[in-house]
């Protein structure tokens, strides 16, 4: 575990998590969530848990982002209420 890399990645994780819940646009929020997952994957790799990192990269950053985008595809730009 290299401390500077760890701190930088942790900072980016917090920034992307904060961005994912504050951003108004749903598509941007889901993409920020994908970025968050990918940064977490980097964090697992830094910690040496490569299997977990692989799972996070495929499921968290890959497929779940696609699921979110596919669901958002069926929403409208502005809410009706």
């Amino acid at each position, binding site marked *: *575990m290299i401390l500077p890399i760890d701190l930088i990645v942790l900072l980016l994780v917090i920034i992307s998590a904060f961005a994912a819940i504050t951003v108004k646009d749903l598509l941007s929020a889901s993409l920020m969530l994908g970025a968050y997952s990918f940064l977490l994957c980097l964090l697992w790799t830094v*910690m040496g848990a*490569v*299997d977990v*990192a*692989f*799972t996070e990269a*495929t*499921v968290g950053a*890959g*497929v779940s982002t*696609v*699921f979110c*985008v*596919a*669901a958002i*595809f*069926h929403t409208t730009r502005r809410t009706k209420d």
Partner: protein
Amino acid sequence: MKILGTITILLCGGLLIFFTSDFPDFGDPKSPASIHLSPYFIEHTLEDTAVPNIVTSVLADYRSYDTMFETTVILTAGLACFLLLRIPTKEVTRRYYLHEPTGVTLRFDGDRYPKGSNVFKRIDSNWVPYDIIINFTCRLLIHFIQIFALYVVAHGHYSPGGGFQGGVVIGASIILFAISSNLRASIKRLGEKAAAIFTATGVFIYAGTGALCMVIGEHFLNYSFLAPLLGTDRIMARSHGIFIVEIGVAVAVMAVMIWIYYNLSSAGKQDEGL
């Protein structure tokens, strides 16, 4: 209400951070996990199961009961998406067809659409012309993604990876095909029924291996009893048993990912979608 929510979140977060201080440090040699469990796995995995990757052997051999129910959870997720979202479409409401020689789009109401025509091509209601670069790149990439996924499944004993990751990658390659060309083209190649059957088959391979062990020997999911069937000694039989189980997990996860994507992207109609 908002203030109440904020207070609850702050309280829970504060409690979590407070109790995290009781946890052992990262890589602490005196923590209970490092004293009791880790040394056993590190010292005995290779002689017990002949699998160099400790994570794979813990996941699919020592803790295989856990992983079996994880696979069942995946199956339940696919079923939940299916039961919540799927709408049976009996009546044909409105379809759009592109007349390819002229490029004119026609709208057909009801049942009077051209069946099996050479010049009419069915398009989605929010259709955009296909981008040739994206189409070609995805076509080129999908084979390599799938071969890499098979490598991940088969090589899980030696390198990071295994059934779960490999299955997700195969599923993602088929989702990529659905995105790059068309949802209907993808459903034509691997339909919803096939996805459902594959899901159940994957879980069945896993649980069936366990049950087979129970029929031959005595313990559920103790692969060393498969040794007479596989024609190897008891240690290699555990390694092969892990591989069989990983294939089951990969099949189940792949099919569930595709199934969920079909239902999500077409809003349950499986008629047109992203």
